[in-house]
Structures are given as C-alpha cells and as structure tokens.
C-alpha cells in the first residue's frame, strides 16, 4: 500500500514536470506578446516594447525561461520558507498572491454548486432508477440532457434576466396574479401526478392535493405580501418538522420502528420550542456560533434517540439526529427571513437584492445575517447555472449504477428473505451504487479548482479561469503556469485518493503494491 502510494506520487511528479514544460512552451509560443505595440503609433512605442520585453524577460528564449521559472517554483517545495516564487504577471502582481485571490473566488463560486449538484443528482438518479421507464424517468432524463446541452453562457444570461432583474422588479410589489398562482399549481400538480406512480386514481388524488395546496399557498403569500417580510414562524416550522420527522424515519428505519419515529417527533417539537428560546442568542450570531449550534443540535438529537432506546437504538439515534439537523436548519432559515427586510431596505442594496455580478455588495455593513444573505443573493444565480449544467452526469451515473445493482443476485436474495423494500434499497442497493460515484466526484474536485471559466466571466467573478484566460490573452506564461500547477496537483492527488477510496469501499478491488 505505502509503496503503491509512493510510486504513484513519484510518477505524478514526473508527469507534472513534463507537462509543465510543455504548457510553458505552448503558452509562450501561442502568440506575440508585443503584437499590440508593434502596430502602435505612440511616440514612445520602442520604449514601451523594451519595457514589456524586460518585464516578460522576452530576450531569454522560452525553454530557458522555463528553467528560470522552475527555479523559483522549486522553492515552493521548501515548507514554511516563504520563498515561493511563481513569477509576476504583466501587471506586476506576484502570481502567488493572484492565485490566492483567484482560488478563494473560484471556491466560493463552485463549492456550493458542486455539493448541491452531487446531492440533487444522486437523489434524482436513485429515484429515476427505482421508477425506470416511467414518465418521471423520461422527464428527468430529458430535462437533465436539455440542461446539459444548453450553453451555460446563455443559461446564465437568462437567469440574470429573469432570476435577478425580473425577480427584483417583482419584489417592488410582490403580488402574484391569480392566473400565475393557478398555473404554478397546475404545473406542480401534473408533475406530482406523473411522479407518484401507481394507479390512475392515486395519481389524480395526489396531483389534486398538490394543486390545491400550492395554489392556496401562493394566494396566501401574495395576499400577505410575504416576499416583503418573509418568515416561517413556529407554526410552519412545527408542521414542516413533523413532516420531516416522518420522512426521515421512513428512510432511516421505516415507520414500523415506533421508537425512532417518536425520537424524531420529539426533535421536531424541541425545534419549535427552541425557536422561541434561541432568538436572543441568534441576534449575536457569528459563523462559528451557527456551526457549533448545528453540531450541538445533532448531538441533542442523537442523545434523545439514545435515551428513547428501543430494539435498534442506532436507528433512533440516526433518525433523531437527522431530523434535529433539518429542523434546526428551518429555525436558521426563519432567522434569515427575519433579517430580509433590513437587507432589502439597505441603502446599498436599494431594494434590488438579487445581483447579476460579483461576490458581494461593496461597502455593505451589517450583522452576520445581513452579510450572509448578501453572499447568498450574489451566489444564487451562478450556483443555479452550474447545478443545471452539471446535473446530468451525476443523475445518469447514479441511475445506471443503481440499475445495475438492483439487478444483482444479492438484491434478489435480500428480497427473497423477506426484507422490506426500504431495507433492500437503503441498506443493500444504495450504498453499493455509490461506489462508482467516488471516482467521478474525485475527478470533479480536480475540475472544480480549474474553475468554471464561462460562468466566471458571465458573472464577473475573477477566479482561476479568468486568471488562466488573462494569461493566455497576454501571452504571459506565469499566470497560466500558476493555474496549471494548482489544477494539475489537485487532479493528481484526487485521482490517487479516488483509487485508494475505491479499494477501501469495494473489497473486490485490491491495490497490488
């Protein structure tokens, strides 16, 4: 095992060296860095050309320049020495500093999107696999491929037009016209009727209920101008909490495990109580506090599950823990909604909260809630755009993997011995279906650092992709090499991690050292 890792790392280092040499030469010979000045009619044309030649060290041939660069880059290997020198860009900025800024921008943009895309993609993949060849399966597949094949710059521009500009205009007077409420109700009702499966009667009833509920909620939201002063309140949290308790228990242990259900319901109740208790504390919130509260909430849930006991204590603990986390999330979401009017009316926001560019409102001041809402309003559109286009691969991958597993012999055995369908899916199929996903998720993390070049440029986020493109347009190898190093190293490390994880997850795969 160890020798395998060492061998892989050694090959990785050699590949990195060779690839960096190639990339450097390709970038350096991709054009003429003086092209614009050659055609210039500025009286100091020669002086400017000399200055740029000096800055980019153009008198040294590119292969030699690579070794100069390598000399600086090699110092990065010495830990804590702080001599890391990846050169400077055309504007004189050290690449190490530029990479620091770009990496943060890219990570804030793509992390959330990737995590959500994985979660949603896997869920959809499982559901479509279980309802293979149903209308739902075809619908999801079609939508996934549709979004996959849409150009992201166009999706992004549409999102800005309707999601930001249109929605902001709507917020000035958030009244939903009745036809829109009815229309949304009908659409969602039809979707649910198609999705639930089963007999026609069951479908009609489910669809009808959803239609009525959605329309009623939308009419209510419109009549109370909810979007101006949104909020959930203890009642909604209570109802949603009970719903969540049932849903989580169904998935984790099945409703037959009464102790687990009771633990979950207790957590829903505690959630409502905590809503009243915790408000003064939340007024002083910081990011760390929310994080600690989340951990505390889960621990309380686990504790309640433990105390409830029952024949399978573990299941109760898990169900209660997850429910606690979700209900806690509702309480926090409610607090964000309470802060919304303050944010909305802030003089910096000028009543147009959803942003089309950047990562934050400049000079915005406020507490944790205001600043976090600001981050959300800036990230929501790029995140949605990225999720839409990357959903397809996760959905399809999970679906096929799940289908393969569901046709395995051991699944038939599990059913034959009388296990409930829930236990078969959650306990036997689902986990094994996730194994192949470990590989694509690891690959995607490598790609994630490389940045979402187009999304970045449409939403004016100057991340890794921008740095890379900017280097290419200025025929400046230094930024390109900086980005290349980061991406290449992450990709290689995560490839290795994927291989190791695969062998750890799937006992059939063994690493031969």
């Amino acid at each position, binding site marked *: 095992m160890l020798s395998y890792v060492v061998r892989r790392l050694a090959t990785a280092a050699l590949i990195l060296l060779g690839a960096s040499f190639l990339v450097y030469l390709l970038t350096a010979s991709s*054009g*003429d860095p*003086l*092209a*614009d000045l*050659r*055609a*210039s*009619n*500025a*009286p*100091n*044309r020669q*002086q*400017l050309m*000399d*200055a*740029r030649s*000096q*800055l980019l060290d153009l008198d040294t041939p590119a292969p030699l320049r690579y070794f100069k660069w390598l000399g600086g880059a090699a110092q990065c290997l010495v830990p804590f020495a702080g001599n890391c020198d990846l050169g400077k860009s*055309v*504007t*004189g*900025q050290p690449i190490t*500093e530029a990479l620091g*800024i770009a990496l943060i*921008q890219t990570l804030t943009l793509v992390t959330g999107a990737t995590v959500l895309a994985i979660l949603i993609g896997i869920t959809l993949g499982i559901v479509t696999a279980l309802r293979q060849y149903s209308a739902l399966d*075809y619908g999801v597949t*079609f939508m996934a491929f*549709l979004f996959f094949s*849409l150009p992201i710059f*166009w999706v992004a*521009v*549409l999102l*800005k*037009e*309707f999601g*930001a*500009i*249109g929605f*902001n*205009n709507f917020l000035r007077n958030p009244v939903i016209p009745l036809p829109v409420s009815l229309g949304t109700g009908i659409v969602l009702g039809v979707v649910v009727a198609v999705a639930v499966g089963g007999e026609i009667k069951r479908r009609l009833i489910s669809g009808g209920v959803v239609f009525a509920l959605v329309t009623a909620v939308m009419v209510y939201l419109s009549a109370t101008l909810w979007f101006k002063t949104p909020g959930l309140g203890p009642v909604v949290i209570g109802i949603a909490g009970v719903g969540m308790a049932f849903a989580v228990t169904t998935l984790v242990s099945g409703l037959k495990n009464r102790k687990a259900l009771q633990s979950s319901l207790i957590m829903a109740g505690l959630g409502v109580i905590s809503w009243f208790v915790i408000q003064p504390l939340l007024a002083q919130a910081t990011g760390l506090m929310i994080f600690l509260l989340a951990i505390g909430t889960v621990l309380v849930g686990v504790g309640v599950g433990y105390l409830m006991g029952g024949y399978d204590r573990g299941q109760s603990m898990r169900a209660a823990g997850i429910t606690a986390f979700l209900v806690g999330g509702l309480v926090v979401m409610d607090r964000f909604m309470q802060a919304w009017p303050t944010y909305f009316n802030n003089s*910096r926001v000028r009543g*147009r909260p*959803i*942003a*089309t*560019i*950047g*990562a*934050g409102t*400049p*000079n915005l001041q406020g507490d944790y809630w205001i600043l976090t809402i600001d981050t959300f309003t800036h990230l929501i559109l790029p995140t949605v755009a990225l999720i839409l286009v990357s959903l397809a691969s996760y959905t399809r991958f999970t679906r096929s993997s799940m289908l393969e597993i569901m046709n395995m012999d051991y699944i038939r055995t599990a059913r034959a011995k009388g296990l409930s369908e829930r236990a078969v899916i959650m306990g036997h199929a689902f986990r094994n279906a996730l194994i192949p996903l470990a590989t694509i998720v690891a690959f995607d993390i490598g790609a994630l650092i490389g940045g979402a070049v187009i999304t970045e*440029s*449409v*939403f*004016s986020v*100057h991340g890794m992709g*921008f740095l890379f493109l900017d280097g290419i347009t200025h*025929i400046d190898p230094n930024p390109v090499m900086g980005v290349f190093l980061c991406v290449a190293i992450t990709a290689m490390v995560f490839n290795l991690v994927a291989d190791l994880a695969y062998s750890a997850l799937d006992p059939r795969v063994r690493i031969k050292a």
Partner: protein
Amino acid sequence: MRFGRISQAVGVLAIATLALSACAGNTGSPSSSSGGAQEGGTIGVAETNGFSSFNSGTADGNSDVNGHIGYATHSNFLYIDDKLNIVKNEKFGKYEKLSDDPLTVKYTVNEGVKWSDGTQVSAADLLLTWASGSAYYDDANPEKKTGTTYFLTAADTSGLHLTDFPEIGSDNRSITLKYSKPFADWELALGFAGNGGIDIPAHVVAQKAGLKDAQALVDLFKSVKRGDPAAPKPVNAQLKKVADFWSTGFDSKTLPSDPSLFLSNGPYIVKDVVAEQSLTLVRNKDYNWGPTPHADEIVVRTIGGAPAQVQALKNGEVDIINPQASADTVEQIKALDGVQLLQGKQLSYDHLDLNYSGPFADKDVRTAFMLTVPRKDIVDKIIKKIDPEATPLDSQIFVPAQAAYADSVKNNGSSAYQDVNIDKAKQLLAGKTPTIRIMYNKDNPNRVDAFSLIRESATKAGFKIVDGGLGKADWSAHLGDGSYDATIFGWINSGVGVTGTPQIFKTGGGSNFNGLSDPDADKLMDELIVTTDKAKQDELQTKIDAAIWSTSYGLPLFQSPDVKAYSDQITGVTAMPNQTGVWWNVWDWARK
C-alpha cells in the same frame, strides 16, 4: 418510443424561450425621477479591468482603470475636456512660459494644495514627476545591453528629456524647466495628462527608499548627473532604489494597510478595494483646488463582458457603463427604460496604407487604387449598425472632435476620394493590371469586411488582389517588412499634442511602415515639433495633412464608434473620445 412527441414539444418550447429571451427587454426598470442634480449620494461605474496599481504611470500599471482611479484621486495643472481642449486648473497651480528661446516653463503649485496626509504638494513632488518622466538619468543602451533604465515609465519621455535639471524655486513650490530646443507638446510634458498628473508623493517615495525626507530625495536627484547611453556608468544604488519603488511599490490589488501608499491630492480618495471586484472612492475632504465634486462616493465595479455590463446597469448595480461597442450592445441598451445612451467616436481609426514601393511605387497606381476604395460602403457595412450617423474619416491627422478638422478637410484633397471612381482609376492604370497583396488582421471581422469590399471594388478597375490576411498574433510583426503592398489596420489619434504626427509620417518615423518620404512634409514636421503655439501647430498640421494626401498615401477609413450608457437617475456624464473616457468630468457626476 414514447419519448418522441414530448421531446419535440419541449424542444420547441426551449427554442421559443430562446427567442423570447432575445426580446425580453422592457420588463420594467427603475422609474426615473425628474429634477436637477443634488449633492451627495453614491454612483456606480463599471470598468472592464480590475484595479492593479496606485501609480498608473508605470509600464506595468498603465491600464485604463488605474488611469481612471489616478485621475479621480490626483490633480494636475491642467485637464483635457471632451472637446479635446486643454483646460488649465489655476486653483491647483499655474504653469507659465517664461521664454520661447530657450523654451522655459515655470510650474508653481498653490499654497494649501495638500496630500491627504496633510503634506503640502511641493517642488520635490514636481521634481519626482519630472525625474520619472524625463529618462534624465537613464543610460541604457538596448543594442549593447549596457547601462540602466531607472524609472519604468509608460509616458513619452522625449519632451522632458530635452530639459536640463530643473531649477527649484525659493518658495519650494515651483520648478522651472529649460528645454534645449523648443518642444511642441510642452504643456503636456510634465505629468501624465489624463492619468492624474502630479500623482506620486515624493516624501513617501523618499521614506520607502530609505531616505530621510523629501529634501534628501531632492538632494539625491541633484547629485546624480545626466545619463549617457554612449558612456554608461555603474548603477547608482540609492537612485535605483527610489526608481524601483516608484516603478513597483504602488502596485497593489487590495487596499494597502499603509495609507501613505494611496495618498490623494484630487477630488476623491480610495476608501476600499476588493481585489478584482470593486473599488470605492469617497470625497477627499480637504480638496478645494479644482472643480468641486457632487457625489459623496463612487463605487467602481469590475465587469468584463459587455452583456454583463448592460445587465448590471439594468439591475441598478451600476449607473455608468462603458462596454465594448458592438451592434448587439447598442440594441440591448436601446431596449432599456430609464437609460441614456451616449454614442460617440473613439480616437482610434482604421486606415488603408499603401507602400511607396513595389507595384505602388508609381503614384498613379496608388491614386488609382485609392479611387477604387468604397469608403462609404465600408462605413455602411461596419459602422452604421452601431452608429447610424457615421461617415468616413477625411483627414490623415485630425479627427472631427478637433476644431481644425473641418478646415483641414476642405483643402486636403480628400474630396477626390469621396466616391468610388472606377473609370478614372482605369484611366490612370492605362491597361496595367498590378497584383496587390493586402495584409490585415483576419481575426478582426471589421478588417475582413473592409478587405472584401476593397477587393471587390479594386478588381473592377483591373487590380489583381491577393488576400494577405494573417492571424491576430502574426500580422503586426509583418508591418513594414515589405511582404505586402497595402495594409488595413488601426491607429490611435493622440487627441491633444502633435508629437504623434512625425511618428507616423516622417521619413524613418517609428511607425512609418509604408516608407512615406516627402521632403516638404518632413520640413513641415521638423517645424511642427518645435512650434509651441497651438494656432501655428494647427496651421502646420493642416499643411502636412494636405501634403500627405497629395502623395497618395492611402486612406483613412473610419473612426471606431464609442458606446457609453448611464442611468437617468444621474446627470453630468458626457461622451469623451480619449482614454480618460467618462471620468474626465468625474466632479460633474451627480444623482438626481
């Protein structure tokens, strides 16, 4: 398969959405309020590039956005207005020509003009500006690779290089420059006009370079002799330290923790910078030595693409945009409510140059070729989509924004080339069918269009046109190498100043790629660069313009259009062709 019909339906729906999104213009935007300008408030401006340096005069800091921030945070003896006139700012200080021969200019900063740390703007600051912009100390010889270039400036040093070491006034607020020969652009010589002028504080540079104070810096400048590239001396370590700090010490993508690195002596001061995202300017509270600003705060947002700028304007995130001009951008802006579109012309222009060699050595062939160039069609095809009022450019030297353009155009001979005249061209060719290779940047669609139109028309007169288009990375390296007979590319008129003229048109000029050598024009240009009087300069330039046209040089084609837009919630924004752009009157911007 069940799939078919549904997928078709959704496909049609998707295409319909696509089509609709193209028309989704008027879904409402901020309602316009009437009324005049008011004091205070915040104004958002979009910039294409990210801010990177508080010294916009250096070779690596000389980007558009750095120049704009430099302009808003610093003062100068003059600024350039949207009619391309020089406007003196006598509240800051005055410059006066003491004598014409030798040309002697005295610069005096008014008392009470201060950096934002309270230090008076002094002779030391003027001296540093002079030292960095004169290449006085440089003894670098690029051919032999000897000597040193101290200050890495982006400014043209040819003017100040003619001066001796300045005389410092006894009040310590003035310097006097004496030129060894008259210099036409003397008014623009000191300070990088359009970028801020007197923008780097000497006392800060002195301290950062390890000197005691500004006086020590002045003494250092005095102690070092003029550099001579023919006889390079060893590097002066202390001066190099000063110059290096000047060249790179003010580069920063974020707000430095040391406030001395972003001192202001202009209407605004930088308050905050978020790297590659935004920059915030607030009023410089001491400032009373120039036009008074209205807005309290200006937020500069970095937005790269033109569509993103338009959408940010629509969503109220910025109030002023200056996107790259294209027909689509103009359409998008026109579709917005509550937004004013400003259409103007940039100082850059496309032109067709004919080599004075090869098949074009014969003047009649050049003239014949010029007669075939369909300039009006080119403008119609390329520019009218963006600017319906566009016309061909009729001067080799002036642009319409300059007062002298109209007079020059009347007599420079351009009238003969208003319309295509194939018959006359055929007559001049007298049966010859010269083969002409036209070189241009084939990655630039405008140049490709211009080439196609010229080829079509010239072929009718009997020219055989060879397509010599090259990729965007290659074409400029071939300028002047004789591998082509004609070329289509762009130049930038300097707007103010005349030293750009000999650079292009003088025998052996640095950008004279087609080998023009006209003794009369050369003589006029020799006179021009030592003429210090504006009216006389215009007169000479008008003569030069006519002389160039009469040699059948080639043709100016059109000026690039310029597109700006601003929300009608603000006032005071005007079109400005030069690199300062809308920022030229930043003090007039106000919220309604």
